């Protein structure tokens, strides 16, 4: 027990039992206990006795009430020496002047060491280095239970800071095992250990006779050396968010403002929605459209924030403000709130940033901000674009003359049946509530796998075949083309530049279907459109690979539509999500030349797939083969080597001379 309070239990009927506490029950000279006297009280010196009776047992608590602060000598009511209290108490349980039980408590209490003074400076003790013994001979932690330095750990018998009389107190309940200091337990191969049930036949001869100083468990760890204590300084590092040295921007680095924060422009996150504080990466253009309404509108970074140019000085943004006149391109009115009392606010509709860069620095920032008024109930599509222009040329960074597709370019589509051969390949761009009625189209961009959809309102009484036709018509409106261009510069006059779209139309079996009289459930609705575009690398132009589209396939996946009822199936509308997904699949343009079986066509030492397995050939020098026990192979190899050696020696004529002379 440690602390200023100890408790114990008195078992048995505690009616009529008096508990008392006696100080110094031991005679100083003889060391024997005084005769117990039942006339004590519940207080003795600085000690208190508390008894809580619970049914058949009583909990007896002895506590010390005195000040344990360390202070100067000659002062009162505090400790003059570190070892403050060394006392023996006796707790007696008496009934009618007859002692039923007694409990001896020996207390050794040290003074409370709390720091009164200024904590300052560094904890400096570089001369006090700990020498770590070489773990090949001594285990690193020879006494794992010695947790506190400078004091005795209770129940830790290997702790050197425990005085022998302290150790006597807990001698019977020492920690056992490795934690208690037995870090070198006898291992199984020792001759003196009888722990193993199964001892191999040769065990009597090949058991280890030597002492425990060399065990196989030593020497596996860190290779002993000197460890200097870490010097803790009390300086808390400043929380700088980007925390970089300014040597200029590299491609992809975030742009940092004057206050060491990220320069943020709303961008689209991975989940699809816009986040307001997304940092801008150097040399990374983007063009995002974000939906917002008046309730959730947030102002971006103010335009008077200066940006770190990369060399350490800061540049101002050159802002030009314009107001939008034709707001229809940006706004959609959702609910018809044409009342005069509408709350309107001036917000930014679009921001176009142009960063002019040179090498690793930003030279200029030009911003064009379009403002307009947004009223309550309207949904605004904000547009943010960022362009990085090199200061040498004023056109945006683009690879020159690459006829193939680049990631992000529009996929060329053509409708050979139409008169103007103009076609388009689109996917949904929903707005507002996401309904198909209000959704627009966005063209498919090369290399960007996309997935989008919208919600179609369906009546509960909808006829299934009508629904199927409706859905198919809506999805077909996305594909206004019959051919897709192989390259970015495919011309409309040359049919070889185009690949035909392979269409897998949904299985129209409404004639064969038994008329379902079930309302509200329609199977086989082709609600998901899958566009798969297969492309390949067909060469390179100026080091930039040229990509061409090889084939396009359009297929439909069917769903079972079921009317979603609320509490009661009223005659309201339910939503059917129809989706369109685009997937770009890369195929190798030419298959690689097949290597002959002897060549290392797989990684050098792959024994599973190669025909020749060099590591296994050199067994037992290399350990890769596992078909034969290593020891057997080694023995055979050694005896073979020995025989060869013997033959070489014996066949030498010098040896036969020596042999004859020694046998004389």
């Amino acid at each position, binding site marked *: 027990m440690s602390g200023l309070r100890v408790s114990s239990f008195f078992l048995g009927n505690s009616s009529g039992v008096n508990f008392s506490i006696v100080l110094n029950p031991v005679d100083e000279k003889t060391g024997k206990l005084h005769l117990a006297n039942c006339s004590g009280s519940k207080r003795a010196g600085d000690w208190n006795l508390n008894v809580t009776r619970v049914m058949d047992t009583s909990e007896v608590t002895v506590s010390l009430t005195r000040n344990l602060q360390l202070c100067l000598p000659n002062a009162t009511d505090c400790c003059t020496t570190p070892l403050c209290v060394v006392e023996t108490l006796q707790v007696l349980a008496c009934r009618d002047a007859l002692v039923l039980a007694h409990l001896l408590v020996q207390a050794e209490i040290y003074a409370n060491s709390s720091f009164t003074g200024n904590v300052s400076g560094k904890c400096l003790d570089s001369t006090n280095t700990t020498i770590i013994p070489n773990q*090949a*001979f001594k285990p690193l932690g020879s006494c794992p239970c010695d947790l506190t330095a400078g004091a005795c750990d209770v129940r830790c018998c290997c702790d050197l800071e425990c005085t022998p009389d302290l150790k006597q107190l807990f001698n019977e309940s020492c920690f056992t095992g490795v934690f208690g200091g037995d870090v070198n337990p006898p291992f199984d*191969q020792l*001759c003196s250990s009888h722990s193993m049930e199964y001892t191999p036949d040769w065990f*009597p*001869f*090949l*058991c*280890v*006779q*030597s002492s425990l100083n*060399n065990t*196989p*468990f*030593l*020497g*596996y760890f860190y*290779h002993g050396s000197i460890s200097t204590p870490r010097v803790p300084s009390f300086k808390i590092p400043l929380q700088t968010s980007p925390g970089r040295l300014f040597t200029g921007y590299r491609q992809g680095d975030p742009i940092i403002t004057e206050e060491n924060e990220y320069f943020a422009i709303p961008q689209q996150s991975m989940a699809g929605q816009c986040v307001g504080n997304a940092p801008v990466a150097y040399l990374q253009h983007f063009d995002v459209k974000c939906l917002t309404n008046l309730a959730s509108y947030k102002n971006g970074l103010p335009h008077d924030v200066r940006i770190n140019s990369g060399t350490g000085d800061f540049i101002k943004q050159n802002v030009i403000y314009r107001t939008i006149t034709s707001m229809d391109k940006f706004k959609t009115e959702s609910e018809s709130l044409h009342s005069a009392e509408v709350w309107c606010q001036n917000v930014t509709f679009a921001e176009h940033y142009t960063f002019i860069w040179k090498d690793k620095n930003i030279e200029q920032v030009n911003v064009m901000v379009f403002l307009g008024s947004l009223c309550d109930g309207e949904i605004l599509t904000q547009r943010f674009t960022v362009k990085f222009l090199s200061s040498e040329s004023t056109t945006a960074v683009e690879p020159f003359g690459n006829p193939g597709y680049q990631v992000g370019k529009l996929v060329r589509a053509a409708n050979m049946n139409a008169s103007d051969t103009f076609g388009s390949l689109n996917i949904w761009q929903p707005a507002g509530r996401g309904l198909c009625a209000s959704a627009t189209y966005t063209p498919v961009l090369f290399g960007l796998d996309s997935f989008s959809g919208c919600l179609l309102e369906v009546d509960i009484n909808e006829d299934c075949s009508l629904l199927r036709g409706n859905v198919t018509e809506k999805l077909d409106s996305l594909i206004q083309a019959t051919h897709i261009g192989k390259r970015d510069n495919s011309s409309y006059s040359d049919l070889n530049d185009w690949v035909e779209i392979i269409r897998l139309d949904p299985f129209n079996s409404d004639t064969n279907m038994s008329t379902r009289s079930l309302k509200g459930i329609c199977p086989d609705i082709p609600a998901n459109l899958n566009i798969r575009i297969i492309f390949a690398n067909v060469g390179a132009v100026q080091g930039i690979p040229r990509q061409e589209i090889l084939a396009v396939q359009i297929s439909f996946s069917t769903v079972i539509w079921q009317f979603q009822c609320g509490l009661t199936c009223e005659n309201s509308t339910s939503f059917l999500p129809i989706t369109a997904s685009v997937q770009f699949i890369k195929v190798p343009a030419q298959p690689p030349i097949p290597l002959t079986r002897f060549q290392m066509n797989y990684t050098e030492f792959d024994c599973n797939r190669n025909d020749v397995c060099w590591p296994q050939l050199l067994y037992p020098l290399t350990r890769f083969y596992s078909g034969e026990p*290593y*020891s057997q192979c*080694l*023995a055979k190899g*050694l005896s073979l080597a*020995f025989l060869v050696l013997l033959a070489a020696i014996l066949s030498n004529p010098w040896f036969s001379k020596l042999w004859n002379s*020694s046998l*004389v």
Partner: protein
Amino acid sequence: PEILNNSFQLSSLPLQILLYVNGVYYIFYFLATLTMIVYKSQVFSYPDDFLAPDLLVLFIMAILEVPRLYLGSKGNLTEEEAPLGLSLVLTLGSVVLAVYFLAWQTYVLRADVILNALLLSAYGLESGLKVMAIAAFVS
């Protein structure tokens, strides 16, 4: 001393027998100790650079053994004290190395103990016989 060929034979027969047996036994001892060191190096972990001294001592012992036996045999047969004395000195060295294998090795197996004990006893007997032979030759 027996009378043979009209001259007293001072060479000690037991010494010669012991030297011959020692030679054969040593070959067996060398091979057994070598394979046991190989076994120990696989089964147990040696502290860094402790395997090399063990092997080195074994090879030194083997190298010492050959001249030791040769000189001893030659000295006994030609009844000269000098080779026999040199052989005795080499025997002392071999005794030290055998004690190393018996007690100061990194891991001492029980088979090690048996082999080295036998070797030490052979050395002891040999030394005694050599001393007696030298005494016989000198006088």
